[in-house]
């Protein structure tokens, strides 16, 4: 009989399996959907530049997070009672001169205790994101649980759990993006230079390990204690809860965010001795002894969290890894007679509404998150100080109304193919064209998205926005924009979605979401301009684009589930319209002087 692998070898085998999986996901991103291996290599790739887009986007996001973390520290140094002189050199604390002064102060001496408290609050918020965002992923609510398979392997449970935590420590991109830039900013402003990324990584790793331990304990315990429907609710709550944390953390970089800056200054001092606090203190220590001391404490605390987590996990798994049957008990048919009376919409629209009412995650993602994101941005970032701004400026009101509706469409209509999931094959069995079915979905999401701008306008009227001709024209423009953008969202969603991708993260290509956002911003520009002919041109161009994109998307539908075939390349009306829109944008949005239409703002 063969010997079982030793614990270290088992640990390595598991870690290698996880890394291999990550590599395969990377390969799937890099090559194409439906990459079938060397024997079935297609002649032509559907998305050969995708790896480049992913790389550029990752680098861009890292740079953006780093910039936010650095600006937060400088902003807090200037705005909090840290004894900084930056306000004295410049009346505007966000000016370059004030920032330069704050930067010099930070590098000259250890952080002021108030700044350290504030920075620890930010790090704690980011730690919360590193824990909550992965917990809110679809993995929690999936009926299949990989631990059920892993426990059948011949190894000690402790090794298995440690490997799981290690994998979740390293494979937590949202956690890395949240915590590493923050640690790098603290290290940089503490005087480190080229060693900054490494030192920051050394302090980020224990924090990620703590987050991974908490997540593993949480999802293991929850899976064993809660019914599948409760798990789905919890997943929705976790995904929502991480949003305000993110905006709270980001708002510290805004000079106008007086609310959160006030909270940061009063953050309790004991938090300095938690893992996020110790990580920042280790990076900010000005001598090696103190730095190593804080670092050792951080490692010790991480070890303690790991030890406690493993003990708890062993206890949770003492009775096995399956506590409840995977099948959800439904009500018997006798107690639930099928209703045959009045029904809204088409069968497909009714199914979509039914899914929306049952899938809490779908509901939250589609209809609630846009509200949270918009509300957080407006309130926490200090962009809207009071309601008078809305009353004084109907253009702002209509921009918010349209923006909210457009955002809802991006998270709903844009995902029409994606939400079909692996059941997309069913659409190919009905005696209707898939285009007509998608049109039904676009109609439904248009109606649902219209509720948001209408509510914003109703609130505006309630708070005293004058109901004059200008407001009416803004309302008409917004109402016209929603169906146009529902069409654009569904059409772009057809190209953005890869229904053959096995990994959920690879199913939607972000490039098309950015294209949608750019087009939305163009419409928002039209809402803000006073020149009626510019508005008219924008609406006509975008409506024409919506129709031509729809036509092209319809041509692509037969190829959606085909791993290799694509519609024959040809020049279509949309190419010309995109060119016209680009020209329009250059002339009116970015050009210092309008070249075709005399835009005025």
């Amino acid at each position, binding site marked *: 009989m063969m010997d079982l692998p030793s614990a270290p070898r088992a640990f390595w085998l598991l870690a290698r399996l996880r890394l291999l999986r990550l590599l395969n996901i990377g390969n799937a991103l890099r090559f194409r959907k439906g990459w*079938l291996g060397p*024997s*079935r*290599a*297609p*002649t032509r790739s559907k998305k050969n530049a995708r790896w480049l887009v992913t790389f550029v986007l990752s680098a861009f996001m890292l740079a953006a997070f780093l910039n936010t973390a650095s600006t937060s520290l400088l902003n807090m140094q200037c705005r909090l009672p840290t004894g900084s002189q930056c306000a004295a050199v410049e009346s505007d604390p966000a000016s370059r001169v004030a920032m330069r002064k704050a930067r010099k102060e930070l590098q000259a001496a250890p952080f002021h205790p108030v700044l350290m408290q504030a920075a620890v609050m930010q790090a704690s918020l980011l730690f919360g994101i590193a824990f909550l965002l992965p917990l809110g992923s679809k993995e929690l609510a999936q*009926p299949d649980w990989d631990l059920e398979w892993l426990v059948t392997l011949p190894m000690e449970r402790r090794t298995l759990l440690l490997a799981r935590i290690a994998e979740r420590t390293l494979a937590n991109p949202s956690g890395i993006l949240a915590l590493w830039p923050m640690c790098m900013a603290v290290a940089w402003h503490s005087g480190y230079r080229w060693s900054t990324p490494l030192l920051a990584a050394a302090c980020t790793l224990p924090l990620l390990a703590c987050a991974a331990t908490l997540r593993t304990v949480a999802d293991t315990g929850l899976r064993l204690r809660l019914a599948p429907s409760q798990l789905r609710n919890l997943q929705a709550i976790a995904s929502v809860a991480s949003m305000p944390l993110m905006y709270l953390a980001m708002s510290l970089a805004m000079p106008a965010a007086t609310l959160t800056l006030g909270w940061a200054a009063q953050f309790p001092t004991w938090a300095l001795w938690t893992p996020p606090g110790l990580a920042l203190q280790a990076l900010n220590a000005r001598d090696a002894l103190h730095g190593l001391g804080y670092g050792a404490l951080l490692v010790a605390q991480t070890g303690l969290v790991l030890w406690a987590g493993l003990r708890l996990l062993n206890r949770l798994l003492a009775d096995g890894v399956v506590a409840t049957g*995977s*099948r*959800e*008990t*439904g*009500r*018997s*048919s006798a107690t*639930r007679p*099928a209703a*045959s009376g009045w*029904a809204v919409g088409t*069968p*497909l629209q*009714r*199914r979509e509404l*039914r*899914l929306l009412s*049952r*899938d809490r995650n779908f509901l939250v993602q589609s209809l609630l998150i846009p509200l949270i994101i918009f509300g957080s941005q407006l309130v926490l970032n200090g962009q809207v100080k009071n309601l008078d701004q809305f009353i004084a400026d109907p253009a702002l009101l209509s921009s918010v109304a349209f923006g909210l509706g457009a955002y809802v469409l991006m998270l709903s209509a844009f995902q029409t193919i994606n939400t*079909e*999931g*692996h*059941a997309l*094959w*069913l659409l*190919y*069995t*009905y*005696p*209707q*064209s898939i285009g007509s079915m998608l049109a039904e979905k676009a109609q439904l999401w248009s109606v649902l998205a219209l509720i948001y701008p209408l509510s914003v306008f109703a609130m505006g009227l309630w708070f005293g926005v004058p109901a004059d001709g200008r407001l009416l024209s803004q309302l008409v423009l917004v109402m016209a924009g929603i169906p146009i953008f529902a069409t654009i969202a569904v059409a772009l969603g057809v190209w953005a979605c890869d229904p053959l991708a096995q990994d959920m993260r690879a199913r939607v290509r972000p490039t098309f979401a950015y294209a949608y956002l750019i087009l939305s911003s163009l419409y928002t520009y039209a809402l803000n301009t006073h020149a009626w002919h510019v508005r008219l041109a924008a609406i006509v161009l975008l409506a024409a684009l919506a129709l031509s994109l729809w036509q092209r998307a319809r041509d692509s539908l*037969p*190829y959606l*589930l*085909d*791993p*290799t*075939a694509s519609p024959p390349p040809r020049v279509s009306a949309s190419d010309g319209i995109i060119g016209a829109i680009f020209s329009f944008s250059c002339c009116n949005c970015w050009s210092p002087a309008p070249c075709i239409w005399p835009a005025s703002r």
Partner: protein
Amino acid sequence: MIEFQGLAKHYGDFPAVQPLTLTVRRGEVFGFLGPNGAGKTTTIRMMMGILVPSAGRVLVNGLDCQADAAQVKRHVGYLPDNPIFYDFLRGREILQFVAEMHGMPRKAAIERAAQLLQEFGLQDVSEEFAVNYSMGMKKKLGLACALVHDPAVLILDEPINGLDPRAAREVQDRLIASAAAGKTIFVSTHLLDMAQRMCNRVGIINRGALVATGSLEELRGASSADSTLEELFLKFTDEDSLTA
């Protein structure tokens, strides 16, 4: 009823299905046999418009499966090899939804769904989310979905693969009854006892190419008269003889 006209599919240089020309007659139960990876599912997916042929076409009732896809679906019921259903929907709701998508009025759809759930023995689990069904239940629900609009043609991909003997027998009996009612059935399988029991004619596909077609007697041809379908299958898909 079903007419393949040089239907082919290539994945790059790899010929998944080589030009396939074949006719399945009305009321016939045609078994599409082949080892794993031979091209059976690819062929069926092209029939359903899920994959786009690299060449050729397939007609059902004279309608092109690509050009007249929506019209073809009126006449066709389809069961995939691994039916995956919508999350968060109960078996009854899925069946009712499929019936309505085929144009049935709501009341009729409800009655038809209840009838099929009863016939397939799924009434006890009709209020459970279908995503949680066992493989056997999913196959039965998939078959019920395929039959809900009473199609003239059934296209079935491995209909009893993964089912226990009782469930497999129930599905086969159901299909035999459908065939007796005059439906044309195109069924892919690598389970030869099923093919021998059910099919009027079979086609054997290997490495994407149709290597034999006909009734069991016709396939026996040059072989000994008492050859079983298994022996014939092994003969036609023998790699050594193919490469020799």
